[in-house]
């Protein structure tokens, strides 16, 4: 089947470029990646982190920590997979 090692190459690329989708990517997975990217950007960007921390009334350090903490599960637990039909 996998004549040119295409499959393994794709897998490798998927592993390297986290967040790359495929046909089986669920909405939740896609959203979680989006949110993680966004949160990582907020943590990295001092200007945005300050902006958010002012709104929240927290220090910048705590705001950044909260963002990193949220990166673990940004969109809540994954929904149950649809029951596989026999």
């Amino acid at each position, binding site marked *: 089947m996998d004549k040119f090692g295409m499959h393994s190459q794709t897998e490798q690329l998927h*592993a390297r470029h*986290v967040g790359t989708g495929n046909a089986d990517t669920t909405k939740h*997975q896609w959203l*979680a990646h989006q949110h*993680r*990217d966004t*949160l*990582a*950007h907020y*943590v*990295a*960007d*001092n*200007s*945005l982190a*300050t*902006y958010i*921390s*002012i*709104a*929240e*009334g*927290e*220090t*910048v*350090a*705590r705001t950044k*920590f909260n963002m*990193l903490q949220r*990166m*673990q*599960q940004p969109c809540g*637990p*994954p*929904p*149950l*997979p649809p029951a596989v039909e026999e």
Partner: protein
Amino acid sequence: MFLYNLSLQPTTAISAAILGHFSGEKQQEIVVVRQQRLELWHPNTATGKISIVHSEDIFCRIRNIAQFRLTGGSKDYIMMAADTGALAVLEYNPKKKQFNTIQYHEFGRTGLRRLIPGQYVAADPRGRAVMIAGAERSKLVYIVTRDSEANLMLASPLEANKAHSICFDIVGVDVGYENPIFAAIETNYEDMDTDFTGQGLERSEKLLVYYELDLGLNHVVRKWSTPVSKTANKLIALPGSTDGPSGVLVCSEGFIEYKHAIGTTATHKVPIPRRVNPLEDKSRGLMIISSAVHRMKNAFFILAQADTGDLYKVTVEYADNTVSRVGIKYFDTIAPASTIRILRAGFLFAANADGGNHQFYQFENLGDEIDSEEYYSVDGEDTQLIELAYFQPHELSSLGLVDEIESLCPVLKSQVLNIAEEESPQIYALCGRGARSSLKIIRHGLEVSELAVSELPGTPKTVWTVKKRDADEFDDYIVVSFLDATLVLSVGEEVEEVTDSGLLNTAPTLCLNRLDGDGIVQVTPRAVRHILADGRVNEWLPPQNREINCATANNRQVVVSLSRTGGQSIYFELDSQLGVLREHEERLHIGNDATCVSLSPIPEGRLHAAFLAVGCEDQTVRVFSLDPQRCLEPLSMQAVAEVAHSIEIVDQLSTLILYMGLRNGLLMRANVDTTSGELDDTRTRLLGTRAIQLCKARINGTNAVLALSSSPWLCHAYQGRLRTTPLSYDTLDFASGFISEQCAEGVVCVSGDTLRILTIDRLDSVFNQASIPLSYTPRDFVLNDASRHFAIIESEHAHMSTSLFKRGLFESGAVENNEEAEGAVLPPEQFGLIRSKAGDWASLIRVLNPFDGESTQTIELEENTAAISIVQVSFTNHEVANPHDKFLAVGCVTSMTLKPRGFESASIRLYRWNNEGTGLELVHVTPVDDIPQALMSFNGMLLVGIGRALRLYDLGIKRLLKKAQTMVAPNTITALHPHPTSTERFFIADVQESIQLATFNQNTRNFHVILDDTLPRYITSFHVLGDGDTVIAGDKFGNLFGIRSPESVSKSLDADPTGNRLIYEKPKLGGSAYRWNSIAEYHVGDIVTSLTTCSLSAGSRPIIFYTTLLGSLQVAIPFVSQGDVDFFRSLELNMRKHRPPTSGRDHLTYRSAFMPVRSVIDGDLCEQYYMLDEEKRELVSDDVDRTQQDIFKKLEDMRSLFAF
């Protein structure tokens, strides 16, 4: 439209700072990160003052830096993690005064990405390796070595990646000379993503991981990991090997824990003590946000700061590299800092990113004397239970504030107004947050500190300072000259009058100078007096009926000019053998009376000044040679617009500069060729309305000239360019440089009938600020034009007001009466506001007089209500309102929650200005159904943006009356802006969907959107230019952009202002029928908070002025000629080519971080031309095809014509 963007004041917030010996000298220095700038600060441990030595814009987002020293080296390097996708090793070159990239290793794409390393950087304390990590997955370790020339080298990176793991902090563990170890706090989310039970987050654990770099095998292994608290956020590395126990302190919410791979079976866990507060939320733990470890001989000292601002002293007791106990004790309270650093000389540097100034403290003790309970870790296996520990905060007792560096961060709103009616407008900015909020009044001008002011008997004309002996370090006399007398003051313990100085005090003094051989020359209108060291006086008298009208001298030469002789001048030279002044046989005849004379400075290694400059009555300034071979030969002449009042030649930036102060207040400047005496490159600038008096002085170790007109100015060299900056001080009449024990580089000056001693400490900031403290984070403000009072709304999330706190204390039974409650409130300036839970608000409306800083009225909003928008409005409904009444509408919301966005109720409070605009009275409150985030006065009614809807209100007796409503915005309306000319049109900003142009149809009472944008832009602030078609706006990602309406739309609207022709056109692609055209794009690198058009100095052209969140003040100058555009385009291009930013980031891609840059030239990059060395300058000027002087002139013109 083509813009030239220039930052007048760079970002002031500091996100990171490191301490080290970056110049390679004994003195400790600080390198700070200010968004895209890297700066080297020099703390003077003798005086306790910090000065900024070097500041460089490196055009990238610096995210973290670490200090690095090679084993056995004496110089520290800077390891920089930024958005460059590379690790850069920088070095400070003290000779050239610049940062150099010595190693640069690229590993990924640019930008702020989660998987590319760059978020954290940590160095091995022994200088063998460095780790750079990303927010997720990636970690790279570089071995650092020396090459044969002892240069620092980076080996190929070693990967220590772990997929799906989020990194919270990394630190280099001190393990002596064993294999380097880096510690990291990580969590892994792989299981969470596939755990369908919903228990994933609870089951997950956070790990402390040790990564060991095996130097022998050249690879990195995950050596050890141990679970830590789920709230762990920060690591503090302890000294190791012979200096300490090694290992790390893991800071989590509420406690600190000691962890190490070797020899830790017992747990050492101490709670972070909390302030005694009966109303506290016990579930919220304190978080350590910054820390510093100070190594001393055989000991170390740890300070950690919690997010309340409290500093704790952490002690670690150990024996044989095994920790026996960890202790924690409250130390002091300062503002929450982004970084704290302890200097060896006993100072603490606290850099601030949460509002407030950067502070420099001196240690008065190490906290041992303070009576505060110390908590220790309990030996035992029980790690679960940590009881809450408490302390009673106290005033600063171990630290003393010695210096402050002002910071504007965060700037929340600003306005450029001239309500003080000065020559140039002031910038009023709402700055800071929480208890450190303030209204800052920012003026262009250097800050002057006044050391002494004393009254004099009469009105002095001039003032001089002089030393008695050549070898003296300090000035001995201050000589004040009046119209007909001279007063001699000796400087010592006290300044007092003396009469034995040998100086004539019955005549005015025209010129006074020290002469070699311990003599003094005093020129009075009737004599040139040479006072010798032994007290004898040699006098030269002018001919009868002739008086000396001007004179100049240095320590070997004297030139005097006689009045009414057609400019006859006599040149004296000190005879070094006889020690007397000898008159030159020839006299200088100019043909016109001289008004002022000046000698050029003596070049190094020479004895004589080479040139004499004379200002004449015929509106010329002439230069003569003083070369013995061709003495008094005319060399060059410069025609000036008015008679020169005063001239000076100084050596600045290794060129001779002739300054000419004219009688009409113009200052002219020309370069003097050092060999031929030719004048070229003449510049003119208007400084004031009075004749300009020029006085030499030394400021910050460089030659400077004070130009005193109706206001004082300083002409000095700064970072490779000449700058003329006003001083924020009273009018001065005359000044002289002054050196004494108390001030190394002071200025003594006369103003009116007073004598003053001043110093100018800081040249890095051309702005000075007056600050009026506020209570809570300010959100917006409006000006009452008539009374010139500001109405400011302030609101603070998750905090409570002191009155609520007092009431709470009373209700909870913690206190028995009001006085006790009063005593329980800590002063917020030091301790911050009282924290409450999320969803609680403290808010007020304040009426403030900006001139005396007094609040004439404060209205504290009760019942958890927060003010979020404010506007001044007048109503045309005269049945209800008096036509002269001015109203203030304030949008309020009760119990607002941020995540998710929600509220209990919302309202618009309408106030009427009373007491001649110094107070407010509530007219009525109108409830509304969503948060009124945007308000605008519109055709004598109030226009409100409520969620997605626009609503028009008119004034009623009991409440506002709804007149029209239309859903217009895609998400939420955040701001409204009127059209400059049309009354039907206005602009709407959406929280996500850029800007819309809308019209109001009177007949149908409907709002229609005519234009919207093709790009989603998260608008933070916007401004409409005077043409009514162009909008300049800033978004949340730090972009500045310009959009313009298509010509067809503008034409159609001009023909039919109601827009009837356009509103019925078919909508296109789900939006309105027409779209904005993008005309300018630029990535500023910081969120734009306020935009306006104004002219910044008297007579200059209007420009776009904006402030950014992290405290920068910038301008975007519209070009007026295509020639300038072409020139600056070419200059920018060549600067990019020949001087790429030190960070290694490509300048063009940085400025195009979100959208490709369009029609904006980066003036900051162009101005780096001043800092290039000669060779590079030549290269650039060749490629631009202009001379260097042309480029300098162009750059200077952009500043002087439009800004400053």
